[in-house]
């Protein structure tokens, strides 16, 4: 089974994967990367210390084969003032 490495970027923070993971296929690695990005996003994004989480998937030769990015965008809007007499 092939080895994959999953580096994580959270805003300006970079967390390299030193150990790697053996998975049955690229599809399985993509699912793992997508789950990890969603989980890390759930943890980090609401805190506001990062607005974007990227998981970079590398093959056994440390060549990038795909990236998964999760972003959060919060927009505050000023509501129209209520009409007089409402």
């Amino acid at each position, binding site marked *: 089974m092939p080895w994959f490495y999953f580096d994580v970027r959270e805003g300006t923070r970079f*967390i390299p*994967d030193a*150990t790697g*993971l053996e998975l049955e296929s690229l599809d399985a690695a993509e699912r*793992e990367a997508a*789950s*990890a990005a969603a*989980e*890390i996003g759930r*943890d980090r994004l609401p805190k506001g210390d990062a607005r974007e989480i990227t998981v970079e998937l590398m093959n056994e030769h440390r060549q990038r084969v795909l990236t998964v990015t999760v972003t959060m965008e919060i927009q505050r809007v000023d509501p129209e003032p209520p009409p007089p007499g409402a």
Partner: protein
Amino acid sequence: MPAAALIRKLEQFDRISDAERQLLEQAAVRQRAVAKGEDLVREGDRPSESLFLITGFVARYNLLRTGKRQITALHVPGDFVDLHSFLVKKMDHGVMAITACTVGVVPHDALRLISETQPHLTRLLGLNIAVDAAIHRQWIVTIGRQSALEHTAHLFCEMFLRLQAVGLTEDYGFKFPLTQAELGDTLGLSTVHVNRILQELRAEGLITWRGETVVITDWPRLQQIADFDPTFLSLEQEPR
């Protein structure tokens, strides 16, 4: 002496008399070796005996149709892995050996006899099940409401105190023989996320995990991050 690990565990809760000690020794009729990865109990089984752990590490788990697995409890030496099988009869989960294990076997007939003749021992066995439930409650809280880092820190705090109570820690170090995938199945996290959390715990100077050994490098701060309160473990010896 198969019963020694069990007696030590029950002694965490309260004093055990010599007569009770003798009864537990008679109740633990034999011991059995279990290979790593083997199921001690399968979902759907109707066991006629309950098992307690003498050496090794086991996990209670449920499998989903998709093949995903959730580990719902970890057990360390002295723990009953399925005392509740005496009462629930049909198992709603499996129990697997994380490492090679030795287990002590207590027939349900022996538990029935204790429940009919030994009120104090019966209370302690009831407390054993109650503490298992308290740990499950704590896991629901951590899995539902804590960040992955806090949740992982909480699990390491819990495992440290439980292993310390049975004399299996050395200073702040202990054997933790799970793979990262098994830890992921315990925490409900992907392996990649677990790896990232472990790196963060290490970078923050909280724990190191090399091979099968975890060392807590900042116990006060680890507890603080985990919001850890050991009450749920009932580790105080008092009359019960």
